[in-house]
């Protein structure tokens, strides 16, 4: 019977997400590279959005003049627009880049300026404020806010990370073990996030994503074992598993941060803020899950027996689906 439920859930998710080859919240990016006096090469990478060209476009300041013919290349996950511009006597600082259409999407755009003297500046444009003012130096609190939100967004939009945390929550049996397990996961992913962002180690993304999916699949049977009253190493020491797989998830978080290509000077502070954002998002998720359990008790919800098995089978079947999907993508060389 439970195998049938498992199969049903697997087929449901497989059917639902069949056409999904790209993440709709994949960020876009704009890079301005100084290639001569007053000249910049502007590269705008617009991600594919629901299988169509992205609704947002890049609007440069009116005073900028395009030199030569702009180019456009369509790739698997984005369209790359490139042009060379002269920015005039006013310089870059204070110029405003606009992204009309971004407000109707959930896409963030990373803007990076590389000057000839080697200095760099970055900023993140969000749908809620679809423009950015280019500046050489930014106050520390602006950088902090930006990376804090980036980390917060990253974990809340990363369903695979959240599902792993949910799996852990379903395994732990008491508050002390919960604190130990969540702390262990936090420490582990902070370690790898740090070493990956600082450039001491790197994990290639396709196999990393497959391994993260595998970590979720690993928890599915363990949750079912908890429900059956059985025990295992994972159930006795969930913090151990949280630490082991947390190292993997940290590399995943790092990939979300490295896309911004931040300047070296901003790196340690940005890393700290990004990590704090990730922790805040994780805490929000954990408290929401615990709040739901409390709400069910307060509202005197008596679930039928089969519903109690659903979380374990959902975690397991989604983990299985993503593992297969990402392994296939890995083999195909996506």
């Amino acid at each position, binding site marked *: 019977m439970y195998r049938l439920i498992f199969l049903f859930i697997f087929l449901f998710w497989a059917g639902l997400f069949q056409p*999904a*080859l790209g*993440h709709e*919240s*994949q960020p876009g990016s704009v890079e301005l590279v100084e290639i001569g006096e007053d000249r910049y090469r502007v590269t705008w990478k617009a991600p594919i959005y*629901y299988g169509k060209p992205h609704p947002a476009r890049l609007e440069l300041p009116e005073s900028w003049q395009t030199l030569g013919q702009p180019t456009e290349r369509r790739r698997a996950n984005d369209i790359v627009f490139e042009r060379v511009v002269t920015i005039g006597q006013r310089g870059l600082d204070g110029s405003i880049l606009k992204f009309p259409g971004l407000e109707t999407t959930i896409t963030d755009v990373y803007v990076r300026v590389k000057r000839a003297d080697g200095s760099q500046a970055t900023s993140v444009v969000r749908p809620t404020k679809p423009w950015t003012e280019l500046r050489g130096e930014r106050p520390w609190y602006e950088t902090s806010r930006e990376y804090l939100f980036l980390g917060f967004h990253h974990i809340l939009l*990363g369903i*695979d990370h959240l599902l792993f945390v949910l799996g852990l929550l379903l395994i732990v049996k008491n508050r002390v073990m919960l604190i130990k397990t969540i702390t262990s996961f936090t420490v582990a992913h902070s370690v790898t996030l740090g070493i990956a962002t600082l450039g001491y180690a790197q994990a290639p993304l396709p196999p990393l994503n497959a391994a993260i999916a595998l970590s979720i699949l690993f928890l599915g049977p363990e949750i079912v074992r908890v429900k059956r009253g059985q025990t295992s190493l994972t159930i006795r020491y969930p913090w151990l598993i949280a630490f082991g797989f947390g190292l993997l998830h940290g590399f995943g978080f790092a990939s979300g941060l490295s896309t911004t290509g931040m300047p070296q000077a901003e790196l340690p502070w940005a890393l700290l803020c990004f990590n704090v954002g990730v922790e805040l998002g994780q805490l929000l998720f954990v408290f929401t899950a615990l709040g*739901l359990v409390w709400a069910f008790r307060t*509202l005197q919800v008596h679930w039928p027996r089969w519903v109690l098995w659903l979380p374990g089978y959902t975690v397991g079947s989604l983990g299985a689906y993503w593992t297969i999907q990402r392994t296939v993508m890995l083999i195909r060389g996506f």
Partner: protein
Amino acid sequence: MKRGCIQRTGALVLGVLGVIFLLPAAAFAHLVTTGMGPVYDGIGHLLLTPEDLVPVIALSLYCGMRGARAGRYAMFMLPLAWLLGGLVGLNLDLDVTIPVPALSFLLLGGLIAADANLPDQLIGPMTVMIGLLHGVFNGLVLKSGPGGPALLGIMGALFVLVALMSAFVVSLERPWTRIVVRVMGSWVAASGMLMIGWYFRGQLS
């Protein structure tokens, strides 16, 4: 699960980990291929649209005031009715302007402010009606964007919101806390009146 099966899963995990650290490619971009984008769109749509969010909160507060039974009912029925309405909206081709949010604000805010003791036989249909109406208009909006999967996101967010808010109100024991909830209801009703005023002003001009 048998010991051998656990060992096999462990071996698979180790194998994939081995592959990760042996492959030389570098990570340049984050591409989580979960396909959950439209579902997140749905969650975002509900949480960032006050015209939908406020009536949901108001309904949760009201059902919480009426007790655990009403809260349970809203927790299950509102998402289902919203989904049904949304599916209808996705397949409709309407261009009507009915101030549904304003009416919901007014009705629910008024009920909370008055602490009106509606019978269960009325709370149920009212919940379903609000879910259906808001769902239809959501469906019309989502048709040109993320479509059906976004409704699943909205459903999930509704379930969590209603459960948490209703349970919170049910758990309130001190009499003054009930007054605070009623004051919140009066603000919702006042906002509804303003919205209706703006709607009719727009119609007349």
